[in-house]
């Protein structure tokens, strides 16, 4: 049972609070790098871009690494790769918290992926409120507000942050830093509500999820897929940046003459080998098959976990062909009428 508790973190104590987090683990926060944001290790608050839109790679990179060394080959036997260090993910948006919860369903399901589990247990998630940009459509998927999946969640106030505590660890952090927090006032709550309302009204994009799964299933032969097959580059960028895409490929590499490593890396369902089986049969032989497959996978509604999409907008922002997730689904729906 999660006890929701609200405290206030005044602006003047913010830096002190931030620095105190170092004792819980290595702080990783969104940092501006050229024209993108990326979760990176930070030493001081001034490196952090708190008003970021979205990082290129979602926080899943801390739990399933882009290139993840699973096993080391020593004298013909696999040794498990070394343990994990505690990390504090500072400034995670609500959509990404939801994304991690979707990954949890996969990686923590039996048999548990021990690498993922260890890293998850060794992490502290500190969420932060945000304002949507032109790509965001999380509100229509219900992932714009996180009820669980974080330790602390910071909501912007004019003079600090309203902090929601989301876990026992979160309580422990507040407990250990009692001095920096204050009780919240009625006024803070009022601002919090106003902020959320303003935010809710700022979304420019929304996904019509009414009967989405059935609608898509009926649209298997839709001409819209054919249209996008020509536009799509099949480059897999959308998969790489997606917080819920989890396909991985495994390769064994030699590190020296007799020792090797088994590495997994993010894979994309746009790759030819994704649906290929021994003997040369390909279950998704064309780009159309693969394009459609991705939309089917993202729009699958799992009664216990919801859609496989959190509306973060990364696939739109990082698609070289400027294919827009919501627009494709709207067009498919339109063509069905």
């Amino acid at each position, binding site marked *: 049972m999660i006890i929701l508790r609200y405290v206030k973190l005044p602006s003047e104590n913010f830096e002190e609070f931030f620095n105190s987090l170092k004792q819980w683990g290595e702080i990783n926060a969104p940092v501006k790098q050229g024209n993108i944001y990326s979760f990176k290790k930070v030493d001081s608050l001034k490196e952090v871009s708190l008003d970021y839109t979205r990082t290129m790679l979602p926080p899943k990179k801390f739990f399933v690494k882009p290139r993840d060394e699973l096993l080391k080959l020593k004298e013909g036997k*696999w040794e498990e790769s070394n343990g994990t260090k505690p990390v504090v993910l500072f400034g995670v948006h609500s959509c990404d918290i939801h994304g991690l919860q979707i990954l949890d369903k*996969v990686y923590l399901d039996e048999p548990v992926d021990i690498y993922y589990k260890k890293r998850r247990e060794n992490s502290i998630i500190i969420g932060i409120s945000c304002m949507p940009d032109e790509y965001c459509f999380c509100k229509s998927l219900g992932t714009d507000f996180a009820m669980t999946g974080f330790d602390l969640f910071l909501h912007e106030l004019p003079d600090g942050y309203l902090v929601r505590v989301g876990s026992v660890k979160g309580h422990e952090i507040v407990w250990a830093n009692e001095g920096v927090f204050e009780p919240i006032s009625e006024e803070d709550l009022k601002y919090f509500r106003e902020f959320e309302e303003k935010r809710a009204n700022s979304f420019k994009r929304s996904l019509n999820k009414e009967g989405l*799964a059935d609608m*898509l299933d009926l649209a298997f032969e839709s001409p819209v897929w054919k249209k996008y097959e020509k536009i799509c580059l099949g480059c897999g960028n959308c998969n790489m940046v997606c917080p819920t895409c989890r396909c991985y490929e*495994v390769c064994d590499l030699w590190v020296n003459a007799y020792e090797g490593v088994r590495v*997994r890396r993010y894979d994309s369902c746009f790759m030819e080998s994704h649906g290929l089986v*021994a003997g040369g049969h390909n279950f998704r032989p064309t780009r159309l098959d693969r394009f459609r497959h991705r*939309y089917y996978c993202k729009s699958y509604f799992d009664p216990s976990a919801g859609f496989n999409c959190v509306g973060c907008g990364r696939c739109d922002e990082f698609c070289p062909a400027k294919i827009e997730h919501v627009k494709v689904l709207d067009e498919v729906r339109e063509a069905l009428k």
Partner: protein
Amino acid sequence: MNPYQTYDAKILEIRELTPREKLFTLRFVDSEANKEFKYKPGQFVIVDIRGFGEFPISLCSTPTREGYIQLCVRRVGRMTKYMHTLKEGDVIGIRGPYGNGFPMEKMEGSELILVSGGLGMAPLRSVLWYAIDSGKYEHIYLLYGTKSYEDILFRDEIIHLLKHGDAIGCTVKLAYEVESPSCIYLERGFSPKVCKGVVTDLFRGMEFDVENTYALICGPPVMYKYVIKELLDRKLSPGRIYMTLERRMRCGIGKCGHCIVGTSTSIKYICKDGPVFTYWEALSTRGLI
């Protein structure tokens, strides 16, 4: 427990079944691992050639014969090509078993129709011998479509069952595509059980009690819909049609995503939800077959 760790298994015996397929008989080096390894017909394992990679393969031995496991490997890709160069006594890694397997208990007391084409014989051989050994099934039919005489997997077993199968409640029927003296010899000796044609030709004149029959199918992807048509024409319920499917799984435990099939209304992992599915499931999950 690291689910990606593999256990040493020693190759006890290698038999060349055809020029392309070899049968590997394996036993875990660790005796505990041998005891713990329990499987059902239709399940699969992941073979790990350390330093080179892994590949999934179905178990073709039966759990009724303990002490070893058998894998039938066709030389077709880079890993299986390497597997074929291994010798008796070599050690490889194995993890598993994975997948749901065939519901053997549920089918007890019924007639089983095993329909296989080509390499599909491998997982069904596990069912075949499980059913014969346990003696809990009313009758077993094996309909096997092969390209040529040389391609018949487990040829000695198939010929043995053609000769003596009926006495132990197992009728084998064989269809071949490429004519050769050996096939004609078989056809003369075992008419009408052996004929020239494809596996669906073996259904000709076949009747079965739809209330008490299960069909189990495994073969190349193109085979399924033709076989299913024959079964549905004879009014067998889709719930009594089981098929086992293949994908190239990287993990075998529902993580890597390579075996995800379906559409927005139904997504299945072949490795975790399968590889055995009923025809009902195929109807509700597009792309399964």
